[in-house]
């Protein structure tokens, strides 16, 4: 069974573009701030990705259901209220039920509000498409964000802490690369990631396409 037969032709296309051809981080360079900040440990990367995906899906459902009602002059306010409320719910639930993760992520949970992937998808996609396609788009973009964050986090956690999900994987003699645990390490890894994915996806620099 192919993706097309399960989801429908348009939805299959949305999944492919979200996960690869219009990857939010590597192609649109959105959401880079949190990708740099939260990718030092795999555990945090997973929690952050879940948070972002949840808010994305919530925004998709609400914005696409209301897309015919939203007066175009107040559409940005509508996104902001929806995203901010979703993020506050995520923040409170993490604090109540997963306090350790909430503490590790610190101010980055409330900062999901400013994650441009959510705003970007709301403006570019949810406002023009029906709830089904919007949710498919939200999940694809959330997954794209998640696999990028987890990939960077795996490399950074192994090199910077010698562990993977908290388990020791490097030999005792391993000297942690402090730079990998610090934000600077994320820049190196993200740079290499962008280089590889952009080469593979054949993204042309602006002005040369």
């Amino acid at each position, binding site marked *: 069974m192919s993706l097309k037969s399960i989801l429908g032709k348009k939805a299959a296309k949305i999944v492919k573009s979200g996960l690869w051809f219009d990857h939010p981080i590597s192609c649109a360079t959105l959401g880079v701030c949190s990708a740099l900040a939260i990718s*030092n440990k795999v555990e945090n990367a997973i929690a952050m990705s879940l948070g972002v995906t949840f808010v994305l899906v919530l925004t998709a459902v609400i914005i696409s259901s*209301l897309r015919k*009602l*939203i*007066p175009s*002059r*107040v559409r940005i*306010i*509508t996104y902001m*209220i*929806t995203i901010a*409320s979703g993020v*506050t*719910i995520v923040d*409170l*639930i993490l*604090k*109540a*039920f997963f*306090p350790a993760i909430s*503490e590790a992520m*610190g101010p980055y949970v409330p900062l999901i509000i400013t994650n441009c992937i959510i705003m970007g998808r709301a403006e570019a996609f949810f406002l023009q498409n029906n709830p089904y396609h919007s949710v498919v788009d939200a999940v694809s973009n959330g997954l794209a964000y998640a696999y990028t964050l987890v990939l960077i986090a795996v490399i950074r956690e192994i090199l*910077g*802490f010698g562990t993977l999900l908290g388990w020791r994987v490097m030999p005792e003699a391993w000297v*942690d690369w*402090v730079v990998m*645990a*610090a934000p600077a390490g994320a820049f190196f890894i993200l740079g290499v990631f962008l280089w590889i994915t952009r080469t593979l996806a054949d993204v042309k620099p602006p002005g040369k396409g």
Partner: protein
Amino acid sequence: MKERITMIIFILVLGGAWATTLVGVDRWTSPIIKKYEADKLRKKILEALAISYEGKEVEQVFSENITSEEFGETTIYKAGSGSVAFEVDGPGSQGPIRGVMALGPDLEMIVGITIISQSETPGLGMRVLAPDNLAKFRGKTTAPRLLIVPSSTAVADNEVDAVTGATLTCKALESIVNSEAKSIALLIRGDGE
């Protein structure tokens, strides 16, 4: 005109709906969050006083072992052994450091230091505040002043080895420990007035 009214009504309705949802979620989660925070402080106080709560209800262990006493705005937690614990805070190299410090009955010997929150550099400053490093402070004295000295040169009772590469955090911790120990001694003994 009609367009503007629709716009205002739309925003008010949407805002109202979200506000109601948020109030609901807050009502549901806030008691759980408060309980967690209170338990966390109790755990940190017990840890600083080296009282084990392993496998027991923290609240119960706390009420059996600790009596609290208010000194103005500061709360002092007393253990049966005569040791006292209190909350400490001060500036770190990246942001505030909050923790609990416990002193012996003489108000000079350090019984333990635990950290509640901090935002030091991972891999550098964070190592200074890790429990295994803080254990080095146990039994050291703050009289006349606790000193953090270059790695492997600590000899005297008031000297602790520094963590190489984390000078700023070491300095910050040193000044928090000294100033808080002094002010608590003043507070409890009431001298210096």
